[in-house]
């Protein structure tokens, strides 16, 4: 069964901006799905329409087979939304925020309190339940929005950049939580600018750019498209000149650092053997950029010069 089925979805704003140009998208039940794209690509508009915060111009959206045009309330009841921007009252307590949200979904108060303890506990906020939300740190506010979205135990959880501005330790703990929810049967749609996050968590992926889906496949298939990977080599001794090695493109970054492009038909062992033969010792090696980032940048570049010239995912390095 499809958790989400979008057909020919279009959105034109009053100022003339066409945010979505007839996108089709399908997310299967139980999936962990990444919706990626540069800023202004149409990700948040798509999520806004699914969560009924944005009026669509055309097309259809079905959630677990339920058409949002004809059975809006039923479709909404399946969805939990974690928006990009903080959107809870700054004057209410943590507990009030999550219990009220459950109430809006018709969850009885005793059940809402039990679930509040469960999800606030899992996300490390139970001790803060009586604190006003404005006193929370940025990371806690992000976690509060996730807990709030879980109170009615949605079948489809949509997270719009849930880890933006969150430190790496907390980000990884949120990943664990999301993996646990997905393993328990919750379908998850994630948008993020941290492509490492999408690569680590998601099984399927769609890339949207300028209101059009330019790629929609499994993460494995997408990564398999990567023919060349760029590595950074840290050398023990400084080099006066860049060595020339057949079939390996080496570039000098500084006197003790090289970058090298290795195509799929070559191996790292071969490179090391050739370097060793020249008396060059490699102290350490790392990917220049995350594999998905390299593909992401390439796909955007292929989709049009404006995207390639002006938009690079934060954290990505141009090849």
């Amino acid at each position, binding site marked *: 069964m499809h958790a989400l089925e979008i057909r020919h979805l279009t959105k034109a704003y009053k100022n003339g901006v066409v945010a979505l140009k007839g996108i089709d998208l399908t997310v299967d039940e139980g999936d962990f799905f990444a919706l990626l794209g540069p800023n202004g690509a149409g990700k948040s508009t798509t999520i806004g329409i699914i969560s009924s915060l944005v009026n669509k111009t055309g097309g259809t959206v079905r959630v677990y087979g339920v058409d949002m045009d004809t059975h809006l309330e039923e479709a*909404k009841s399946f969805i939990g939304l974690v928006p990009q921007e903080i959107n809870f009252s700054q004057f209410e307590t943590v507990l009030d925020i999550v219990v009220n949200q459950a109430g809006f979904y018709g969850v009885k108060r005793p059940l809402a309190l039990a679930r509040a303890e469960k999800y606030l506990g899992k996300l490390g906020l139970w001790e803060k339940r009586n604190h006003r939300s404005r006193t929370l740190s940025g990371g806690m506010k992000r976690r509060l929005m996730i807990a709030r979205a879980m109170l009615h135990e949605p079948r489809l959880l949509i997270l719009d950049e849930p880890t933006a501005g969150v430190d790496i330790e907390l980000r990884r703990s949120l990943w664990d939580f999301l993996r646990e929810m997905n393993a328990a049967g919750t379908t998850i749609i994630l948008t993020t600018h941290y492509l490492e996050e999408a690569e680590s968590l998601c099984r399927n992926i769609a890339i949207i750019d300028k209101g059009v889906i330019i790629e929609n496949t499994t993460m494995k298939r997408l990564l398999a498209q990567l023919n060349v990977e760029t590595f950074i080599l840290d050398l023990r001794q400084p080099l006066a000149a860049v060595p020339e090695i057949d079939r390996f493109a080496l570039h000098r970054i500084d006197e003790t650092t090289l970058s090298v492009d290795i195509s799929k038909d070559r191996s790292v062992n071969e490179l090391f053997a050739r370097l060793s033969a020249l008396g060059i010792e490699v102290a350490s090696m790392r990917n220049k950029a995350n594999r998905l980032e390299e593909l992401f940048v390439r796909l955007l570049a292929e989709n049009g010069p404006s995207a390639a010239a002006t938009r690079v995912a934060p954290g990505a390095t141009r090849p």
Partner: protein
Amino acid sequence: MRRYRYLIAFVTILLKEVTRFMRIWLQTILPPAITMTLYFVIFGHLIGPRIGEMGGFLYIQYIAPGLIMMSVITNAYANVVSSFFGAKFQKHIEEMLVAPIPNWVIVSGYVCGGVARGVIVGIVVTLVALFFTDLHMHSFWITAAVVLLTSILFSLGGLVNGIFARSFDDVTIIPTFVLTPLTYLGGVFYSIELLPRFWQRVSLANPILYMVNGFRYGILGVSDIDVATALFVLAVCSAALFGVCLALLNRGVGIRT
């Protein structure tokens, strides 16, 4: 099952609203009590004895129902407009918009929140009035009906204002430039019989005149206008404004992109 879910959602909105204005009682409950105390001291005790009787009652007794009604009107209106605009401004209105709640439940929840504040402030101001003068209720049911319908009507008015408001200025424009003049010209401090015939007729177009006089009749048993007409006008205006609020929310005005 669906109705029960709606009931839970409605009660949640109502409790959220009541909790909000009770949490900030220094800004919501106390100021009308102080303002009305000043009105009773100045207009009732200092100026009132020089005016003498009005409508067969002491001046302080005559203005007391109008002052109570003025508090009910301004507080019911202010509660909904500030709460709804605040929810839009902080974006937590989205908590309701993404949930499976029909818009009539959202309107009802906010309006009942406004009614709750209007009634609580009305009771507080009545207690203040009793400190300065004796008030005997002529008809409890008419008094209750007028207070309820008035606070519903002005809560709905506050909601319309909140829906269209884009800035804090928009929240204060209507109360300052429309509500306050209409209230002062709605017979709070005088009987319209004191006005020339032309201005008496103009006054009949002011909806607040019907509320103040309806409430005055419930308390004192005197009124410039027919009480049944007052209740009818209030009920029709409330129903019409409820429809307007619902239509605006259904179209997503001010809340959806």
